[in-house]
């Protein structure tokens, strides 16, 4: 074999190898197409499968109905109670994450000396690595009893499965994520802005809250948006601690059902393929998917915005 023949065959082999790599990279695109097409297909089946009373679910009733009773008669498929349940838990969780995550981020980037950072960062990493089923257990067996004791002091009635307990624990769960993204944004604020503020005679808290935080605002907003998306898609905490009663309520002391918890409830029962229950989880899944996808795209857009500024 001559030298040119050798290089020729080597080039061909490498071209084939790169082609193989490319086709493997396409798996991720195929995954997206599969997710979208199966969600849409089964949602279509959902709207064309007969209910027990012989009628069909109308898209309008599905999106804006306020009664969710898919498992008993009369069947009703209004998703708003599930959406309200999810949003209620999410609002509580994000409130906790704003307070804890943001102050952790500010403390880490503006206040903490290096050796303290080295203690706090691993704690956050451990919190981020705890499985959600463990958080669910913690909410149900530790936080809920404490909350019930508290509510009795104030004369309120509280149910074992409630949105508040799930929301508080979910807030702890998303705190590491919010604080990591916010901290990145705070750290990337140029040092000369801080120096200028100190030169004007500002104290540390003034510099932190009036100069650094406003400069990093889009990054902080991104951390919250991504945190919200994470909270909406979280499953086990709400399944274990928030209950499975689709109440259309904004009272955090009541039992609710989140969208994800409904999907788990049906999945546990091995719904037969093609039945109305089976297609229902895909209709709920599509709503969930669209909500988290739009939040994620918005959040990433915000992140890119601040990284362009400096």
């Amino acid at each position: 074999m001559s030298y040119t023949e050798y290089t020729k065959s080597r080039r061909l082999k490498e071209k084939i190898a790169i082609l193989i790599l490319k086709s493997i990279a396409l798996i991720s695109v195929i995954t997206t197409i599969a997710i979208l097409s199966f969600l849409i297909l089964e949602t279509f089946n959902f709207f064309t499968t007969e209910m027990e009373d012989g009628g069909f679910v109308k898209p309008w009733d599905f999106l804006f109905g306020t009664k969710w009773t898919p498992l008993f008669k009369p069947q009703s498929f209004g998703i708003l109670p599930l959406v309200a349940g999810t949003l209620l838990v999410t609002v509580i969780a994000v409130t906790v994450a704003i307070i804890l995550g943001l102050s952790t981020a500010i403390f880490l980037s503006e206040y903490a000396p290096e050796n303290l950072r080295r203690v706090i960062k691993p704690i956050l990493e451990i919190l981020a690595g705890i499985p959600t089923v463990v958080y669910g257990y913690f909410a149900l067996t530790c936080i809920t009893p404490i909350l019930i004791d508290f509510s009795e002091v104030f004369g309120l009635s509280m149910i074992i499965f409630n949105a508040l307990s799930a929301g508080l624990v979910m807030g702890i769960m998303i705190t590491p994520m919010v604080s990591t993204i916010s901290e990145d944004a705070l750290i990337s604020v140029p040092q000369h802005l801080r120096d200028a503020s100190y030169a004007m005679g500002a104290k540390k808290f003034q510099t932190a809250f009036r100069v650094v935080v406003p400069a990093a605002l889009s990054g902080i907003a991104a951390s919250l948006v991504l945190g919200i998306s994470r909270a909406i898609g979280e499953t086990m905490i709400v399944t274990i601690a928030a209950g499975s009663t689709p109440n259309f309520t904004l009272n955090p002391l009541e039992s609710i059902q989140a969208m994800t918890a409904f999907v788990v409830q049906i999945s546990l029962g091995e719904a037969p393929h093609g039945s109305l229950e089976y297609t229902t989880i895909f209709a709920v899944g599509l709503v969930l998917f669209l909500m988290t996808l739009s939040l994620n795209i918005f959040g990433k857009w915000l992140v890119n915005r601040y990284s362009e500024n400096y």
Partner: protein
Amino acid sequence: MTTINPDNKFKVRERLDKGVNFLLAISIFIAFATLLALIFDILNDGWKWFDWQFINSYPSRKPEISGIKAAFFGTLWVMSITAILSIPIGVCTALYLEMFAEETRFNRFIKLNISNLAGVPSIIYGIIGMAIFVEFFQMGRVILAGSLTMTLLILPIIIIASQESIKQVPSYYLDAALALGSTKWQAVIMVILPQAIPGIVSGFILAMSRAIGESAPMIAISALVYLTFLPSGPLDRFTVMPIQIYNWISQPQDDFRGLAAAGIILLLIMLLSLNSFAIFLRDYFQRRN
């Protein structure tokens, strides 16, 4: 008009500064205290159940003789197949995107698509895995279906970690290899990839530890089964540790809560050792460079 004594104003600011410092420290303390409370709660509930009998028994209606053996081996099966599937796919994708892909619109779309896939809730992967592998390909609720679903779930994480790791290899490595007459393929496989492996491995371990703790997608694939045998192949039915733990949590009796806590202890031991290994690897190679 009242005049403000400037000395007073400074004192107020001084106090405010200290107050803010204190408040920030408190919120970090809350996060820390929660972690301690969580660990204490679980140890307190589960320690007396956590013994060899628990690890070496099948689930049962009687809590005293119930154990996590079937779920433990189910987790091992699902995770091994997931690892075998996800490493080559993840690394190949990352290599293609970082080293060979030109800046075309389609390749930018692939990258954007991967970062969006990383944000899809895990329960969605569960129901899609059920629709595709369990129903469409008629596999049934078996280990292979679980592993394939888990692979789809952790692929974005592995790809992104591998991309980061490949990016961090200095560009003069590639230049030097090319200058010595190697082709791009040889340079990437023999020079860039070995340099990136530590980062890829630690990203992979973190992805696996996330997969081990995932309950929701596995519930969608496997549902609730009551297994009193060990799976012997990828086409057997299975249960995994998080499902078993969830199953025990949802029982009303206190004893089953204890079993759940014992299961959580085992799960956390596995995850902590995996995570600390990944962090050790990362730090070790960071210091070496």
